[in-house]
């Protein structure tokens, strides 16, 4: 077996196991830790498809940013001795039912459809390409979404500060 195939199944196993653990563990910080594992493994996927910038973003923003934020909020709101109570049976059953049926459905759809991988020469994803496309205005230019995202982030930042600010 080629090494990259092995690597892929290793990462997939981490993703599958850790994402299940994320939602089943009874300690909240462990959930965050498992989530971290899932996200890092996803970054591994991106490294494997040679989208290194995407992988870097995944690590910085997801693993280094969002997970840290989540852990922070856990540190502020929960105590170590606290464990989740068991969910009600109805909810548990419904949740698992929805999850499984959805997974089954999408798997069937994926397996039935024949994907035709393209043989076009792969684009070189270096910083130059990303930069020019991200700020380009012509075809394959993403200046508008980029600006919209900037505005959104600004709005989110102000909103978060206002919401989390202590009252007078």
């Amino acid at each position, binding site marked *: 077996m080629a090494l990259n195939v092995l690597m892929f199944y290793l990462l997939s196993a981490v993703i599958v196991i850790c994402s299940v653990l994320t939602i089943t563990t009874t300690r909240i910080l462990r959930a965050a830790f498992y989530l971290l594992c899932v996200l890092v493994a996803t970054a591994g996927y991106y490294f494997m498809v040679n989208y290194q910038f995407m992988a870097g973003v995944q690590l910085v923003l997801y693993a280094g940013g969002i997970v840290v934020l989540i852990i922070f909020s856990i540190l502020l709101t929960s105590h170590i001795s606290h464990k989740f109570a068991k969910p009600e049976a109805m*909810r548990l059953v*419904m*949740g698992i039912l*929805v999850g499984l*049926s*959805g997974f089954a*459905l999408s798997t069937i*759809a994926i397996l039935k459809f024949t994907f035709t991988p393209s043989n076009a020469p792969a684009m070189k994803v270096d910083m130059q390409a990303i930069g020019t496309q991200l700020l380009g*205005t012509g075809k394959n230019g993403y200046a508008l979404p980029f600006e919209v995202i900037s505005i959104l982030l600004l709005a989110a930042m102000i909103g978060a500060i206002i919401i989390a600010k202590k009252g007078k």
Partner: protein
Amino acid sequence: MNYSLTILILLIPFATFLFNGLVGMKFKPIVSGLIGTIGLGVITLLAYLTAWQYFFVDGMVGGSFPKVIAMSMEWLRLTDALRIQIGILLDPISVMMLVVITTVSFMVHIYSLGYMKGEKGFERFFSFLSLFSFSMLGLVIATNIFQMYIFWELVGVSSFLLIGFYYSKDSAVAASKKAFIVTRFADLGFLIGILLLSYFTQTFDFKVLTGTDQSIFAQTAGVSFLGMSVMTWAALLIFMGGAGKSAMFPLHIWLPDAMEGPTPVSALIHAATMVVAGVFLVARMFPVFYFQAPDALTVISYVGGFTSLFAAAIACTQYDIKRVLAFSTLSQIGYMMLALGVSGYGGHEGVGYMASMFHLFNHAMFKALLFLGAGSIIHAVHSNVMQDMGGLRKYLPITHITFLIACLTIAGVPFLSAFFSKDEILVAAYEHNKLLFAVEFLVAGLTAFYMFRLYFNIFWGKETHYHHTPHESPKTMTIPLMILALGSVFAGYIPFSKLVTSDSMPFESHMDFGIAIPSVLIGLTGILIAWILYKKESKIPERISKSLGGFYQAVYHKFYIDEVYMFITKKIIFNCIARPVAWFDRHIVDGTMNGIGWITVTSSRNIKGMQSGNLPQYGMVFVLSAIILVLIFSFLI
């Protein structure tokens, strides 16, 4: 041919604006003052270098001064043909304006170091001054009409900020709002004009618009509206913007009130630079006006002529020294507009254009001097009103001399700068329109009269007792006065007809003694009358004004133009249009909305139980229904 440093002329004032505005208050006030002044000094030097390079080193190409694009980059692309550039255009008038603006602005900066000392918001003042300089410079070097419009609005904003500098004073706030609203209203016309022009010509670029290729106007042929061709409309609308900034007759009402701002601001903005933006605009677009819309030029000449007469008449009756100067500014700008309006294109035909630019240049010098001198007087007396002054020549020697020089200059006394330019304007007017010539001739006399009325009232006249002895202003204020006095004496000897002309080709201009001698005589007559009436304190002026009665009152109240505006807006627009609209809005529009709201409220009150607020449940229902829908669509249908 290298003008790469000209970009700094824009960037330095912007940088000082940012610095003073953002972190200026962290330092001592004098720091921001010095930074602003030094920055301006540097760009003044750069502007002189650019002018030297442009006129004397690179000089003419093929008999005329070329339009040099020193820098250009694309800012917005609307279509492939219509794109907006940001750049630097150098041609005789923009280079001349660079020199004028930087010089006056530099003087005002130095002067403000003394005048504004100890004021609250010193660094704010300097940051606004820098912003103004930045936007004004950007305006004159604009490569296209859209860039000009952007900076045009920036100029408006900075003028608004500076007029309302003493924002704790109600009158200043009102004046700034008035200035902003009136010029904004005019700019609306300007914008429509730009859109009209660019819609038909498919370009914003000055180089193309004013170039020799007239085929771009082909599409406008035959398009007309209300009996006027579309180009006339566009030109008139563009002129409306210029008239708003330059305070031409129906839109002049903001300028006198704008004197609420600090005096250096009045000198910089409302005398020397911003108000000539309108003149500059018409000059910039002159070929378009001349070839495509000669009717608009006629309108311009009449508006200019009327404004100059009208403002000169009002100036004779005012007592607030800054207002007298403001009206004199109006009158002088009227002169420039008129000169543009009667000008032809090319060679000696274009003498009006040249004279207008020449007068603009001289006017900037002596009017800035007058305002700064007035500031120096106000600084000494702590009052704006003529009645509080008198016999000041003993106390303020330097101010006195420089003020006298400025008054002589504006009165058109021979061999001072304005004599030459005014003579050229009169020549141009005489050649094209005798009526306007007569008006201008009269205005020349009036100008001399009211300026010397002002001068004698302040420096001679009755002996006033002051609470404390007035004293001469500090060096930072008197030095700019002296420099500007030199400028207003000697600026007239610049061979303008060799440098700045309508088609950029030099021509010979001559003194026309047939016109120069009478105009000097009428100027001297005006001075003489003022000397008789105001040299000593006397009762004659009062008697004269009594005898004129109603007319005097009308003039004193500026022909009730402000009141007319108030009447139109308050009585007619508010009552006849706004009231019904408000009623419609309140009852019909709001009523519909309220009705919809009522229906929503009652219906939602009945179904609100479905909203449990339980997020996971929502999610579950959402995903489950999605799954069911997918099942239905993929397997059943």
